[in-house]
């Protein structure tokens, strides 16, 4: 027992102390402990009295050792936090407080140690430190800085990231006013000032994309966010973040610029351009395509398939093409296609379809480019028509040249032959005979020239003045003028033309045509029956057809069909046949844009159908 050892009563008191308390002697051996000490440090039934504290706590830190030793020489009240591992290997933290233990003569006879468990506090402090570290890391990595404004002290705190963003030194001390002045004058500064005011007054948070100028003179874009802070319902300040997004905004602007450039290009291309998805639905269309489909807003087309936009037949073909392009990944270039919109407009396109290929190497859709070549096609067909007309006219011209040459040669040949005879002829009677023939040949030549002249004038009269003429009345007039001629052969005319029927003709030509066909019908009558000539009309596309039927001799069309309208072709042994009438008639009808068809049966009669063109 040590000197001045407290009594048992003291021992009992110590046992009941509410905190973990131990009395140790100068050799650091435990003299008294409170029950709390036993339970707190989890000694259980283990006897601790008389044991060295360093044996009981094998993990005592050097700090604590120093503390205890200095306590024995008089310093006291020092405390430290110690880690302790209990029997279940759980880590716990205690705060030790040591004071010297004096006897009644003020001699230090040991140390009084009090321990209090602070595990909860230590762990929380550690967590907080970790969180702060994490936040700082995040802030640096993300470039998002944070700030806090204390309205009571009127101080503004910026984290290092904000200082970096604003280009100020680490020791810069911001104020509310200077902070606002970083924002660009005008929209940005007004917006932030308003936002702060609103937050203070109404408690509304803000989140704005704004421009500011840094301390080192860079113009940057930032996202500024903030909200008011309250304690017990009372406004105490503001808290917020700042993030620089200049690169983001710049690249966004660049993308916008290229998008707008691309859009301008595709909208102004004189081509129909579209993009279709894998189901052939349009996902992009340009202005030409909208105009072609007669809509002002692309949204009326987007999402629609060809079957909703075009005629079924056309849509089927187009869909098959789409599938082939997307399956084979092979583009179609410049294929001529015909598109028909539901309202029936047909357009010829030169179409290209290019597959769009995704990252997996498969088609995700296609791009279509169509060039409207309807006008070209129309011009091409007009040109072809013109060539046909020209070559036909050329043929006619060559034919006519042959006719002229033939006719002139045959007469001049006769002249030269007869003159040759005349030169050597001695017999006066024969001389007269030859002279008579020369005169006849000369008259024939004059007549031939007149005929040729007439044909030329029909074919060169390009400015034909066509007028609507009442056919019925015209026919009657001609019949009247031929009344003597008709009476001689007892011919009957049946005019079945509707009294209102009009045809567009050159009146003089119509006279000549009617005159020719009617006199021909009488000339080539069958002597065994009374000639009956029937006139009637019908309508076909663009033509008014006049039929002139007779019951005359008829013509073997197999034999003579080709020559029927030839010049100087005659087919009957008839003295009145000159072989010029039908040739001129044909030229007149053709000059008015019409044509003649013939049907005939030998011994029955002939029908000529004169097709008058209704157009000018």
């Amino acid at each position, binding site marked *: 027992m040590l000197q001045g050892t407290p009594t048992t009563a003291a021992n009992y008191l110590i046992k009941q102390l509410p905190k973990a308390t131990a009395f140790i002697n100068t050799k650091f051996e435990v003299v008294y402990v409170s029950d709390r000490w036993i339970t707190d440090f989890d000694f259980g039934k283990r006897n601790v009295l008389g044991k060295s504290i360093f044996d009981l706590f094998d993990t005592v830190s050097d700090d604590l050792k120093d503390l205890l030793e200095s306590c024995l020489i008089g310093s006291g009240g020092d405390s430290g936090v110690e880690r302790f591992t209990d029997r279940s290997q759980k880590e716990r933290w205690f705060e030790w407080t040591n004071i010297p233990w004096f006897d009644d003569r003020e001699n230090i006879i040991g140390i009084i140690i009090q321990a209090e468990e602070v595990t909860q506090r230590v762990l929380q402090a550690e967590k907080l430190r970790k969180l702060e570290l994490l936040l700082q890391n995040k802030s640096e990595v993300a470039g998002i800085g944070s700030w806090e404004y204390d309205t009571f002290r009127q101080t503004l705190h910026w984290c290092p990231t904000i200082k970096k963003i604003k280009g100020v030194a680490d020791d810069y001390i911001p104020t509310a006013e200077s902070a606002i002045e970083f924002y660009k004058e005008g929209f940005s500064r007004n917006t932030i000032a308003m936002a702060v005011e609103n937050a203070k007054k109404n408690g509304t948070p803000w989140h704005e994309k704004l421009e500011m100028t840094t301390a080192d003179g860079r113009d940057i874009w930032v996202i500024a966010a903030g909200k008011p802070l309250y304690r017990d319902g009372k406004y105490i300040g503001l808290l917020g973040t700042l993030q620089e997004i200049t690169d983001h905004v710049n690249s966004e602007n660049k993308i916008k610029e290229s998008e707008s450039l691309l859009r301008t290009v595709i909208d102004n291309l004189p081509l129909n351009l579209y993009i279709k998805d894998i189901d052939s639905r349009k996902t992009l269309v340009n202005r030409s395509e909208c105009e072609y489909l007669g809509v002002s807003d692309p949204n009326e087309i987007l999402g629609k398939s060809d079957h909703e936009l075009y005629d079924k037949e056309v849509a089927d073909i187009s869909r098959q093409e789409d599938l082939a392009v997307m399956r084979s990944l092979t583009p179609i270039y410049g294929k001529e296609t015909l598109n028909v919109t539901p309202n029936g407009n047909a357009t010829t396109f030169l179409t290209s379809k290019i597959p769009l290929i995704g990252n997996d190497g498969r088609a995700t859709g296609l791009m279509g480019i169509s060039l409207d070549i309807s006008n070209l096609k129309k011009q091409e067909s007009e040109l072809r028509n013109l060539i046909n007309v020209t070559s036909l006219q050329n043929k006619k011209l060559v034919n006519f040249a*042959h006719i002229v040459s033939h006719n002139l*040669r045959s007469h001049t*040949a*006769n002249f030269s032959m007869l003159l*040759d005879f005349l030169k050597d002829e001695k017999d006066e009677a024969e001389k007269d005979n030859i002279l008579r*023939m020369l005169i006849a040949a000369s008259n024939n030549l004059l007549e031939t020239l007149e005929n040729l002249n007439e044909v030329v004038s029909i074919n060169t009269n390009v400015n034909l003045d066509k007028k609507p003429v009442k056919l019925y009345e015209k026919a009657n007039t001609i019949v009247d003028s031929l009344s003597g001629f008709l009476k001689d052969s007892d011919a009957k005319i049946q005019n079945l033309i509707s009294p209102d029927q009009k045809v567009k003709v050159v009146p003089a030509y119509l006279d000549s045509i009617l005159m020719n066909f009617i006199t021909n019908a009488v000339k080539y009558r069958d002597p065994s029956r009374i000639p009956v000539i029937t006139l009637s009309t019908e309508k076909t596309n663009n033509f008014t057809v006049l039929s002139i039927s007779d019951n005359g001799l008829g013509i073997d069309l197999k034999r003579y069909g080709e020559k029927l309208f030839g010049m100087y072709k005659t087919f009957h042994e008839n003295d009145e046949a000159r072989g010029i009438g039908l040739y001129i008639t044909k030229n007149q009808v053709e000059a008015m844009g019409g044509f003649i068809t013939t049907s005939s049966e030998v011994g029955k009669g002939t029908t000529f159908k004169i097709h008058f063109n209704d157009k000018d």
Partner: protein
Amino acid sequence: MTKISTVSIIDDDPITIFGITKMLNALDCCDHIETYMNGEQAIRAIRDQIKSQEDIPEVIFLDINMPIMDGWQFLEEFIALKISQTIRINIVTSSIDPVDRQNWEDFKNRTHHQIEFMNKPMTRDEVALITEAVKQS
């Protein structure tokens, strides 16, 4: 020197007929001259001559452009007739249409008859050349 028995002139132009006839007479080279105004009349007459075993013309002057039946249609029917001897046919025309020359070439290759092509006007020398050639054959 013998004479040609029959010469046939087929032409719708009376002046040509007059001219050729006059030249033949002047040459005094043939016994008979037949004239026809078109092919139809001529072929009918030749068919009758064959039927009644009369002499058929040894020389024919043939116009192309004629009514009813033209020179080509006549030739078509003539070469189809069974005539063993070689007849000299002279196409006499004022046509310069190449189609007519082509037709002539075609006919020449299709028949054993001798077919010539000449342009109007015929001259006395040409007629003499033809008739001499026939007489000597």
